[in-house]
Structures are given as structure tokens and as C-alpha cells.
């Protein structure tokens, strides 16, 4: 018997707003427990919710880049359940009138994954369990942080499709500024609905849901395991499949039941009377559309076709929202696409790699980056000094011109100064000079190095080269 896997995804993405959905608390990661809280987001009475307009704009942007229809009028609803990380006892979400419906994301193969809807909701806080003292602590920093949930139809048939889709989604959303989509920080996570059926069958099999996945590798492993578990159950009747929610343990490589019977949960969805329905309208959608930056695939096209840049490097740049931005800004200032590209690929990424910083986390002033490129290009400093200055800009955000001036790193082209430096080198290295004259080309490089050192790296290596040859020939 041959089987096929049928999967649907619910992807949660945290929106890149400054503040939370209903209060002015910061929505940023990394604060101390409960630092980003106020009476409103810890659920005290007396604070009617005021919705964050930016969150709605970002959700509209998400709908635009995933080819959804943006609703004209949206409203919010309450989903009721008790848990200590949910301060009000209900989650504000969109059950009856979600902001976006009916979209799609296209995979490399041309297959379209269709989307059912995108809705806005608030995140919950988190519980920290301390097993030794047997107490649990509540951290409400994430409570009321705005999320969107992107619900796909059951269109996936392999783990590869799932991971490709998630990668595509990450790219689309991070380019549009909707979210930074960092799985490791939890700003993008997904629930996978999975079932298995006989190939060709129209009927869907029993469905299980694996919750809260936040690594592509773990997702692939979990799908592999869970689909095999379904197949085994169908073939050998080793266990009875039940519709349930499961958790994936990546360390032991198994999924296990969360012992929640799906049918029993009654969230008592009800329209939220505290939030008036919001009219979005075509004009608002258009203004969001106009404010969106160039999407990744268009940028790639422009880099390769229009600017004639190499395919591989263009892919690296267009695959990262941060690198794209740096590239565009530096290009506007410095011109010369090829140089800018080489500086990013050759130098900037090398520095970032040494410091263990991922492409998207590179934080550098593109104007300063551009000015270094122009200084090297204009012969004001040599490339290795340029690289040094770039490191300084990277670590201390120094002003390149000022730094070069203060450390007298400007390129020395004064022939008299170079000549005397080389003369000193020749005098100090008589043995090498003799070897060179005896026919050893090897020592030439050594002598160039010594001369560069003498000028503290400020000389133009080409001039040193020429001058040295001339003087050795004398």
C-alpha cells in the first residue's frame, strides 16, 4: 500500500511593532521578566483596549505579499480560557471577521500553497517552572504583543514543501517589514496539522496537530516521525490514531500526546464589545502597498538582469532584508554596484562571520560603509586600511574620515617618504637583497611586506611594488 501525507500549517508571526497591541509597553525581546508590563497588559480592570494602528498596517502588508484579499471591515473577538499566562482570561483574536482571506505563496516548483486566512491576535505571557522549589513564575512581557496567524489549507505533501514554504514566508514577511521572523527567538513558530491517507484517496485520514515548532530542522524530523507513526498505525493497527494535539521532543526524536481531547475545549468565541469594528477600505490598503519595499525576487531580478551582477552574490544579498537595505543605501551614495557588492560579500560578511553575527543582524550605518568604499576607490586609503576602518565602524560606529585622520591612515603617495622607507628596509635586510639578486623571486614579497610595515600599512602597495623593483635594480 502506498500512502501520502497531507499537511496544513498555522504559522504565528510576531509583528514588528514598537509597542504592544493595546498599550504603550515595548514589544521588544530580551527584557527582564515583567519589565515590559503595565496595569493594562497585566489585566487590571479599568483599561479599555485601544488598538495599535501599526499592527493593523503590518497585517495588511502581510496580506498583500501573500496575495490575500484584505477585508473591508474587520472586528475582534474574545477566545476564553483560563491559564496564568493569559492575564484577562481571554485572548483577543479575530474569529468572525479576519483581516485577510484567500491568498497563496508560490514554491520553486510552481506549486501554490493556498492560504485560508490571516488574522491578528495577542500573544500570551509565559510560565517559568522552577522544579526545585516546585513553584511556577509568570512573565507577562510577551502578553498582548501583536501576532498574526497565517492559516494555510491542507496543501502540503512533504516536509520539503513545508520548509520551503516557511523560508519563503520568512523572506516575504521580513522584506515587507512585517516581522523579523526569527524562529530561534520565537517570533515565528508554527503548528502542523498532519494526516496520512492511501494514495489517490479523497478522504482525509485522522488528523493530529504538532504544536509550537520553531526550527526548520526539527520540523522536518517531526513530520518524518509523525507521518511514519500514522502509516505504522494504519498498516499494523499497532495503535489507534486519535485526533489530538501532540508535542514534539526534538532531543528524543518523538512526538507525544498532550492529553488534551480536542473536542472538549470550548473557547466560547464572542465578539469583543470593547473594540469597535474597523473600516479598512481600499485607500488604506493602497497606501500600505505603496510603502512596501521591493520584494526579494524583484530585487534579485534587478541585480542580475539590470545591474549585471553575479547570480550567486545577488542571491545572497536579495535573500536578506538587512543586506538588501545596506546594498541599496550604499549604492545610492557610492554608485558602482560591483564595488558595493564586493565589499559586502568580501569584507562585511567576513567581519560578521568572525563575530558570529548572522546576516540579518548586521547593524551598520550604510552611509559610513559607502564612504569607506569611496575612500578606497578614490585612492585616499588602501584596501587593507579600508577593511580595518570597516571593522572599527562595525564595532564602535566611528566616523571613517575622522578615524582615518586621527590615526593618520591616509594613503602615502609621497615618493620621497616611500623611497627613504624602502632604503631603510634594504639596509636592514642585506641578506634578502643578495638572495633576490641571486635570482630568488620569493624574497621580493617579503621585502614588500617589510616596506608596508615601515609605512604602517598606509602606502599604496602598487607604488611600493614598483619603487622596490626599481631600487633593487639599481
Amino acid at each position: 500500500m502506498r500512502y501520502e501525507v497531507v499537511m496544513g500549517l498555522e504559522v504565528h508571526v510576531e509583528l514588528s511593532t514598537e509597542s504592544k497591541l493595546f498599550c504603550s509597553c515595548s514589544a521588544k525581546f530580551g527584557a527582564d521578566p515583567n519589565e515590559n508590563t503595565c496595569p493594562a497588559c497585566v489585566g487590571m480592570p479599568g483599561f479599555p483596549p485601544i488598538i495599535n494602528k501599526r499592527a493593523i498596517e503590518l497585517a495588511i502588508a502581510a496580506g498583500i505579499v501573500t496575495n490575500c484579499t484584505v477585508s473591508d471591515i474587520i472586528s475582534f473577538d474574545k477566545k476564553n480560557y483560563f491559564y496564568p499566562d493569559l492575564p484577562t482570561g481571554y485572548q483577543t483574536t479575530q474569529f468572525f471577521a479576519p483581516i485577510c482571506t484567500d491568498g497563496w505563496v508560490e514554491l520553486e516548483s510552481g506549486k501554490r500553497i493556498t492560504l485560508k486566512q490571516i488574522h491578528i491576535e495577542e500573544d500570551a505571557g509565559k510560565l517559568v517552572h522552577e522544579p526545585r522549589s516546585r513553584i511556577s513564575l509568570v512573565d507577562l512581557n510577551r502578553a498582548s504583543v501583536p501576532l498574526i496567524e497565517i492559516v494555510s489549507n491542507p496543501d502540503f505533501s512533504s516536509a520539503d514543501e513545508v520548509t520551503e514554504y516557511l523560508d519563503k514566508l520568512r523572506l516575504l514577511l521580513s522584506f515587507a517589514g512585517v516581522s523579523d521572523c526569527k524562529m530561534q527567538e520565537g517570533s515565528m513558530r508554527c503548528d502542523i496539522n498532519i494526516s496520512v491517507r492511501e494514495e489517490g484517496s479523497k478522504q482525509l485520514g485522522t488528523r493530529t496537530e504538532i504544536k509550537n515548532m520553531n526550527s526548520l530542522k526539527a520540523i522536518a524530523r517531526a513530520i518524518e516521525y509523525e507521518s511514519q507513526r500514522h502509516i505504522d498505525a494504519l498498516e499494523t493497527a499497532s495503535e489507534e490514531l486519535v485526533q489530538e494535539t501532540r508535542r514534539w521532543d526534538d532531543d528524543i526524536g518523538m512526538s507525544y500526546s498532550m492529553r488534551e481531547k480536542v473536542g472538549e475545549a470550548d473557547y466560547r468565541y464572542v465578539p469583543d464589545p470593547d473594540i469597535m469594528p474597523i473600516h479598512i477600505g481600499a485607500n488604506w490598503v493602497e497606501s500600505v502597498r505603496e510603502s512596501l519595499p521591493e520584494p526579494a525576487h524583484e530585487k534579485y531580478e534587478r541585480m542580475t538582469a539590470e545591474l549585471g551582477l553575479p547570480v550567486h552574490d545577488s542571491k545572497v544579498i536579495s535573500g536578506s532584508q538587512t543586506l538588501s537595505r545596506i546594498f541599496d543605501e550604499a549604492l545610492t551614495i557610492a554608485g558602482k554596484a560591483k564595488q558595493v557588492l564586493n565589499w559586502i560579500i568580501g569584507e562585511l560578511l567576513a567581519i560578521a562571520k568572525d563575530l558570529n553575527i548572522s546576516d540579518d543582524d548586521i547593524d551598520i550605518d550604510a552611509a559610513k560603509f559607502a564612504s569607506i568604499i569611496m575612500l578606497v576607490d578614490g585612492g585616499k586609503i588602501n584596501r587593507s586600511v579600508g577593511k580595518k576602518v570597516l571593522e572599527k565602524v562595525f564595532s564602535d560606529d566611528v566616523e571613517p574620515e575622522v578615524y582615518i585622520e586621527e590615526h593618520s591612515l591616509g594613503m602615502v603617495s609621497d615618493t620621497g617618504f616611500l623611497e627613504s622607507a624602502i632604503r631603510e628596509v634594504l639596509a636592514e635586510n642585506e641578506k634578502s637583497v643578495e638572495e633576490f639578486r641571486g635570482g630568488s623571486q620569493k624574497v621580493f614579497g617579503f621585502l614588500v611586506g617589510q616596506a608596508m610595515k615601515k609605512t604602517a600599512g598606509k602606502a599604496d602597495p602598487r607604488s611600493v611594488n614598483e619603487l622596490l623593483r626599481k631600487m633593487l635594480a639599481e
Partner: protein
Amino acid sequence: MPIAICGIAIDARNDHPFSWSFCAKKLTKGMVINVSYKAIISSSIMQKGKSATAGSKMLENFISPIDATVVENIEALIDVEIVGVGAMDEFGVGGLFGEPSRALADDGVVGIVASRDVDFALCNDYTGAISRAAAQYGLCYIHPTYGTVSRYGLIPAVSSIDQIGVLSKSPEGCFNGLKMIAGYNSKDGAMPVDYMIQAVKNDDEMVKRDVKDITVTELKPKFAEVYTQIMQIICCAEFSNNISRYDGVKYGYRAKDYNGLQEMYMSTRTEAFGEDVKLAAILGTMVLSHENYTKLYDKAMRLRRLIMDSMKFDTYDVVVGRGDDSNALILLSRLCGLPSITIRDCTYVANKCWESTLEAVCDMLESNAK
């Protein structure tokens, strides 16, 4: 049910609806008004650094971190003073099932205004029980247009009805109190900005209009026989949502003895909530449950919409009712978010934001009655 309608031809009948209630923004800090007032607030209105219990054991240790907007409004005025806090029934919910006995006690909001030297009380009579009780004590209560008084700092009960109103010895006291607290406030997202802006534009017309040529017709409000049931379904549903935040986790009462999380929730809520609150919460949970949502909650909401749509105020400006009709009009104004004033056994209801007309009509009819 016979209801008397006063169709009133006012000089500027075709003007945009406007309401002086928005002109509260003109009463700025330090402004002296002619009369001095002593006011009290109910314990569901929050004052910074003071206890705000809403009559519940659940909040007996709750100290408010903020001043409610209405408290700020009052405190900005010279010669108006908040002299105390009046007791209320737990979250005011008892009014759904009977008399608001706690509010009627000597230290309750109704008791204090009736028997002491206090000019008015601010409270949220979302069930209509305070208005009905006021009648027995010879008092008046104005329930303003939904969304015209900020609910920032009001402990919520039924969000789609919650609205701070004014209890006073006379209609004049009600209207004067309302003028002090009404007005747009950005901290309450349910304030209807559109017609607020319209109203503020027109606030130079802050004059009481003359009422002439009263004509009276009769109106039978739709579905009046089921107002009580609709109120109970909607109020219990929203109430059960609003009190789910009281779980003993973050603030407020927490049971002393419990074993595990479920028991903490159960003991906390069992010990701290009174009978009416439990009844409303259970009914609310029931009407929102999967089996009953369409049968009960959704049906009640549809009826509410039909009732709202039927109140056109096209051939009449104010609806007046006495006795049983008065009680029905009290509920009508809660369900539709319309302004109403109850004066003894009479209730007057006007269209949204037409409090000025309500005032003019009351003045005239009341002076005629004398």
C-alpha cells in the same frame, strides 16, 4: 404597551445632532463654576492610590494605579469635590436579578444621595436597577449616550452597555454632573469618534434650545416584552468575560489553601465571588457555550440589532413612558446605547447625542407638571 411619544418641532430640526455633553472640554482646570457641588463616586470608579473594590471581596485589597477620567474631570474643577465613595452591589450585577440592595443601604450610592448633603453620585447603572430604585427614593438618574463618558478607570461589567451616569436629587443635578464628565477621551477605544467630532465642531451652539409646538404620538417599541431576557443574556455573557481576569494570579484575592492550579482558581473564585456574580458567570458561560451560542446569545444580539434599527427618531424626538413603560424604556436605552433620564416614575429617551433635547423637554414637561 402604550408609550407616549413627544414629537417635538424644534426650530433647528435639521441640524446635525449635537450635544453639549461634549463641551465638558470647556470646563478646564481651575475654572470656577457658579455653584459648589459635593459628589460621591461608586466603588467601581478608580481613584489613584485608593481602594476600588466594585463591592467585591475579590478586589478588597486592590489599590488603583490610576485616576479614572471622570475623577480627573471632576478634580479639575474648583468648587466641585469628591467627598466619598458609595457602596454598590458586587460589580453591580445583582440588578439583573432583583433590587440593588447594597446600593440602597445607608452607605450605598442611592442611600447617600437620598439622605445626605451630597449633590450627585457617579455610577454605572448598566442594568437599570439604580434608575428604578432612584424612582422610589425620589431621585433622578441620567444614563448618557453610550461612549460619551470615558470608561477609562471604570471597573468593567458589561462592556457594550457600561457607561458612567449621574444620580442626583433633581434633573438639573443630573445634567450638571454630566456636563462635568462627558467628552471625548483617547483612552477609551469605544468612544464613537465620528459624531463626537461633529459635536465638538458645533459646540458654540452650547445653548439650551427652546421647545415649541409639542405633538404627541404613540409608539410601541418592538420586542419590549423580551427586553428583560435579552438584557440577561447579553449582560451575563459579557459579564462572564469581564470577570475572568479575576483568577488570583496577579492581584486581588487569592485563596489561602489550594493544591495545584485548578484548585487555586476554583477556591479563589468560590471564596471571593458572591451568589449573584456566580449566577451571572454561570449563565454567561452557558449562553456562550457551543451548544447555546446560536440559540441564545446570537439570537439576543440579533434582536438587539432589530430594536436599535427600529428606533428611528424620525417622526419624534423623545420617547416618554411612565410606570411599567418607564422600566421598559430604561432597558431600551441600555440595549441601544441611547441617552435616557429617569425622573421619579417617568423615563425619557432621546436619540444618540441628543441630551440637549432631552434636557429641554424635561425642563418643560417638569415645569408644566408643577
